[in-house]
């Protein structure tokens, strides 16, 4: 199929993605991270319908990498913040520790099993270990946002989960950067003093361009110019990293963090980037799905079973720790399984592995990422909802409410609703997350309608 047709198809998907979120008319359908688009990609891929051929996918690898790196930029820009507030350092550390726990729980048995079942080299075992750890570590914040949005969940456990899930994003990115520097890919150019100069260079490029982006963003009030700044710094960062054989995904994450960390106009920057999130995410998921190769049953199936089981165990353990942290009298039993959802970050990392280290191991890593995402989004989200309901943070009425859509609100109606909620019986100082969401939504919509895109 012509590359232009595929590109147009991807743009159409981007359009669809924006519509799904922007319009909210079909809110209520779909999985939190849009993993159904991953399945769509599998069906469109070379294995089934062949809309994407192997050759075509290879030709589009650069677009895929740019899309993944851009998503990483968006995530980095939002890193350390939940619902607009800065995360406490303790919770960030906590989130990272739990992610590390899940990563270790899954990576070590997977490597051990592969060591006994296969004749993989040390390099391949390292890729497998870091890859499995990276794609199993996170609990996607989209699942929390999804439950909060759909069921109006609010309370200490919801906030704790939101914080922890936002914080754990950094670990897979760090693992990817570490792997990119200690295990050179096919295109990596050896820098003097590797591997640590590679890691330092990744951080330096991300930090330098992040600071540049923040400085330029602050002095430029025009939104059209701001788009140019974001696009320019982003593409330059990706291009330079690829040229040096470094991890573009990791550098962009750092760039996003630095840009929002240094910019005085942090909120505007985050809002601008947030508008691109779904538009990029859905095509990236479809491409990732098309990249998935179904590995041979042996030794993939035993490894996959071990990874999934150990991830459940790790998340169950994490759930217990979280329950104890809150000193809840009735510790939510299903909280551990509620931490299973994995989403676009895992997929992006898996795909980055597959593209950087072509071969059977990275195929396993991508397939495991997809498996984690599918199981996590289907099973995990349901348990998350149950955990929050058990904790009394979802009212029965909300939990039983149909998730089907309500009428789409205009920006003016959004603002009116937000005003109404602010002036309701609740104390104004302690606004609910529903209020915050409505306000945020109204802001976003008005900025979107202003941007016209």
């Amino acid at each position, binding site marked *: 199929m*012509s590359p*232009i*047709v595929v*590109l*147009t198809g991807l*743009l*159409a998907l*981007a*359009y669809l993605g*924006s*519509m799904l979120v*922007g*319009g909210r008319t079909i809110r209520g359908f779909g999985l939190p991270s849009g993993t159904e688009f991953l399945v769509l990609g599998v069906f469109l891929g070379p294995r089934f319908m062949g809309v994407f051929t192997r050759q075509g996918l290879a030709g589009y690898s*650069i677009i895929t990498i*740019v899309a993944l790196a851009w998503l990483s930029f968006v995530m980095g820009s939002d890193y350390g913040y939940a619902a607009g507030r800065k995360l406490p350092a303790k919770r960030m550390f906590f989130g990272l520790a739990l992610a590390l726990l899940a990563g270790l729980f899954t990576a070590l048995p997977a490597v051990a099993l592969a060591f006994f079942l296969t004749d993989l080299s040390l390099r391949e075992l390292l890729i497998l270990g870091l890859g499995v750890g990276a794609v199993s570590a996170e609990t996607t914040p989209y699942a929390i946002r999804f439950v909060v949005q759909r069921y109006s969940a609010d309370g200490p456990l919801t906030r704790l989960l939101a914080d922890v899930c936002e914080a754990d994003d950094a670990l897979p990115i760090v693992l990817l950067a570490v792997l990119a520097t200690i295990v050179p890919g096919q*295109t990596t*150019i050896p*820098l003097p003093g590797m591997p640590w100069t590679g890691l330092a260079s990744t951080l330096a*490029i991300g930090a*330098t*361009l992040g600071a*540049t982006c923040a*400085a*330029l963003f602050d*002095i430029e*009030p*025009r*939104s*059209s*110019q701001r*788009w*140019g*700044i974001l*696009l*320019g*710094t*982003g*593409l*330059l*960062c*990706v*291009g*330079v990293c*690829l*040229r*040096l*054989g470094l991890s573009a995904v990791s550098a962009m994450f750092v760039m996003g963090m630095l840009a929002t960390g240094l910019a005085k106009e942090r909120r505007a920057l985050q809002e601008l980037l947030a508008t691109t999130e779904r*538009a990029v995410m859905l095509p990236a998921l479809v491409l990732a799905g098309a990249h998935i190769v179904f590995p041979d049953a042996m030794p993939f199936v035993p490894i996959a079973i071990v990874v999934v089981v150990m991830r459940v165990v790790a998340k169950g353990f994490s759930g217990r720790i979280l329950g104890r942290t809150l000193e809840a009298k009735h510790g939510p039993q299903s909280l551990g399984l509620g931490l299973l959802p994995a989403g676009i970050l895992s997929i992006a990392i898996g795909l980055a592995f597959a593209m950087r280290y072509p071969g059977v191991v990275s195929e396993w890593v991508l397939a495991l990422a997809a498996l984690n995402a599918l199981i996590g989004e289907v099973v995990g989200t349901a348990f998350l909802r149950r955990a929050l309901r058990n904790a009394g943070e979802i009212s029965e009425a909300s939990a039983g409410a149909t998730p089907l859509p309500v009428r789409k609100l205009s920006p003016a109606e959004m603002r009116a609703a937000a005003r109404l909620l602010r002036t309701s019986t609740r104390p104004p100082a302690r606004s609910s997350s529903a209020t915050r969401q409505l306000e945020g939504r109204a802001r976003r919509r008005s900025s979107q309608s202003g*941007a*016209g*895109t």
Partner: protein
Amino acid sequence: MSHGEAAAPKSITTRIVQAAALIVVFAVLLIATRLVPEKQSVVGTVAGLGFLLLAGTLTSELMEIAGLPHVSGYILAGLVAGPDVLSLIDDSTLGGLAPVNALALALIALAGGAELEIGMLRSSARSIAWSTALQHAIIPIIAFGAFLLLARFTPFARLDTMSLVGVALLWGVISATRSPAALLAIIAQVRPAGPLTTFSVAFVMLSDVVCVILAALVIAFVRPLFDPVAALSFEDLKHLGFEMVGSVALGACLGMGLGAYLKLIGRNRLVVLLAIGFSLSELLRYIQFDALLSFLVAGFAVRNFTDQGPKLLEAIERTGAVVFVIFFAVAGAKVDLGLLRSVGIVALALCAVRGVGSVVIAKYSSKVAGDPPVLRKWGWSSLVSQAGLSIGLTVVIGRAFPGIATEFTTLSLACITINQLIGPIAFKLGLDRSGESGQAVHQEGATVTPLSQR
């Protein structure tokens, strides 16, 4: 660039930040290219795109201090980064940016069409008619004569008389072309309003269509001069007719479809424009229709047969911060300084003849048409620039006459380079001196309004 939003005066701190950022951007790519000098086209394209976008924007902002147009800044950034100076952008990268350039041209043509309103054309019909007739009749003749006179200093000295006449005729067509992209980029920057702006937009857009037709006619006519066996073929004219009618029809359909979309849905305009720009440019190239004409007609249809013109303009203008920068920075990077050195003097002479001819004819046609004084004085200022269409026609001519392709392209690109450096400065000067710069902002605030409503 303004792109529909008013630019505030910049403080010294802002300028220092911009200069520092420009140094950082250059340094980052310089280090990367020196560490990894291998040519990796796809990777280079991504970095090159980002670099040109940032460096072009920042250079243009800094050149504002000297009162130069942004377009000059974009070109300068591309020139410095290009293969002939710092070599941050190599030839394969420039090749990889071709689809982005096609997209830029599509959006520029769409915007150009959307700026043309029937009422506006009617109000200045007399000026436009006289200018179009005289400029497209006399400039090719003047350029033809100048080319023949200077022929012995050009690489075409070896040709026989008939072939030389043929090349001179082709040169005449190239000389008649103008640059809608440069025009719209300057308009986006200074937000002008007034008779000079209205006339310039209408004339340059119409000139595009005339030049495309003129080129096809001359190519058909010139072919027997190069090849005595070949006769004047009506097949070429038939093909031209088919191409023109097809392009107009497709453009009209696209315009109506776009108008309906903007009215009924109207969301995600950027994504829609990107999809249309990429896919239709490719489709039109495949079916050998004229993409520029189709997009021009589409913009015209949206502007005149629906009420969605302002929406379309607003959407396109918001992409301008990216589109114009890339288009002109790439053009700057493509400038071949070695080439300029080799044919520079002849090219300069040919440009001078074209420039002086354009000014004299503009003044004469303004007088005949009874134009207001501002148009009589500055009407010529938008006629100097050359860019995308000129390069496109050069390529077409090169394909049609492979025997002279290299020499013709060399000379043509040298002249286009000179004109694209001087042209934007001339037009901005004209708008500034005529007092039309910034008038659109005063009249409408920060919203985008078609020229006819300014």
